[in-house]
């Protein structure tokens, strides 16, 4: 009943009456200075949605507040750990990230534009793949495991320096076929519950499903710190959980399917700000 959301004030009244409500009209300003775009006009390629919302909008007042100040945001500890490994020389070349990139702030354009086509390797790369590309090619170091602690810490660092920048992943050119594949996956119903991403995050955002307040399933907040498991969570791990919840056989973290899906879902959020590490329940 998407019309609830589109219905504006009436929608809010219904939601507020039924459960512990979230303030869906709130704005997010981090540390009193960084303005985050949490609602925007939908990108042109989206047919069934006119406004896009960050997952932050649908969280409870308490959870929302945790993201407004870095001292309260439990995800920021991991950003600090990411900074530690930024300057750590590793591998046969004895180099750190800092040796090639100086400050992490110099890579502020990365988080908003990934996943992104890489001309040399002729593939769409997620940030995790690019980080591992640097580790193996430039540093002669071991790759990190997908969605491992070290990887998510580094991703959190690269997100934190890009907060406030607007998501803008490219979906045309050589990335287009991967994007189409991701779109196909987004609308495919899976599992014995026979549900697609769109059933929950396009048709029902703003509605409660039991105690869960459904968001649009946007990725601009990743990696996200979840209160539920008290750690940073990667995009693919989240996808995996959602697919599992349809009683389906999931795809693997780091699989081509999830890379394609990540590109597509990221493009649905073009126009929202990067806000990672975000806080979610």
């Amino acid at each position: 009943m998407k019309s609830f959301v589109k219905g504006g004030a009436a929608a809010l009244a219904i939601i507020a009456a039924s459960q512990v409500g979230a303030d869906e009209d709130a704005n997010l300003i981090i540390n009193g200075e960084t303005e985050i775009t949490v609602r925007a006009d939908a990108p042109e390629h989206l047919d069934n949605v006119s406004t896009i919302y960050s997952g932050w909008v649908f969280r409870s007042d308490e959870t929302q507040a945790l993201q407004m100040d870095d001292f309260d945001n439990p995800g920021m500890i991991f950003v600090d750990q990411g900074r530690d490994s930024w300057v750590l020389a590793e591998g046969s070349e004895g180099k750190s990230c800092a040796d090639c990139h100086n400050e992490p702030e110099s890579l502020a354009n990365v988080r908003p534009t990934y996943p992104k086509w890489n001309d040399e390797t002729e593939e769409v790369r997620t940030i995790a793949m690019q980080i591992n590309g640097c580790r193996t090619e430039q540093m002669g170091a071991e790759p990190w495991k997908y969605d491992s602690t070290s990887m998510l810490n580094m991703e959190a660092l690269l997100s934190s320096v890009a907060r406030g920048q607007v998501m803008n992943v490219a979906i045309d050119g050589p990335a287009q076929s991967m994007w189409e594949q991701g779109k196909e996956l987004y609308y495919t119903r899976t599992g014995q519950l026979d549900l697609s991403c769109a059933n929950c995050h396009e048709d029902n955002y703003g509605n409660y499903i039991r105690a869960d307040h459904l968001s649009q399933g946007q990725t601009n907040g990743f990696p996200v710190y979840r209160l539920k498991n008290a750690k940073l969570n990667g995009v693919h791990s989240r996808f995996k959980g959602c697919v599992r919840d349809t009683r389906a056989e999931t795809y693997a973290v780091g699989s081509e399917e999830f890379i394609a899906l990540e590109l597509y879902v990221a493009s649905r959020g073009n126009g929202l700000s990067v806000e990672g590490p975000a806080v979610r329940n």
Partner: protein
Amino acid sequence: MKRLMLAGTFSALATVVTAGDVAPDDVVYGEYGDVTASLSGVAGDPAAGKEIMVARGKGNCIACHQVTALEEYPFHGEVGPSLDGVGEYRTAEELRGILANPKMTYEGTIMPAFYRVSGFTRPGDAFTGKAAEGPLSPLLTAQEIEDVVAYLQTLTD
């Protein structure tokens, strides 16, 4: 080892499809998705149906539906319509069909089919995320469907 596993599978199935049940693939749907014949041949028990409606591991119907008579159980969803009064305006045959496979009544609905075991994409082994091994069990047994139908019939204004 293999034999043990097979034996396990069969006994698990036996508890699901008991003698006299209409198998999920054999359910006959009417033009509007209704199902005339009882799936189990045994009258439904509304008290058991009520438990199934609210249990997360069973029907969990209130995940999507608001039901005033079930107010004591927390967190009713908003994905489907309220079921208040549904026993008044829906027949048992219609309710049975909607539960067994709602897509026969509402094309493309988000509501899952509770008595269906085939035609899925990448079916998993319950909520493990792994591929299903062997035949699927329906989400509810034939008798559980009858129990829920009996409960829904009590929802009159």
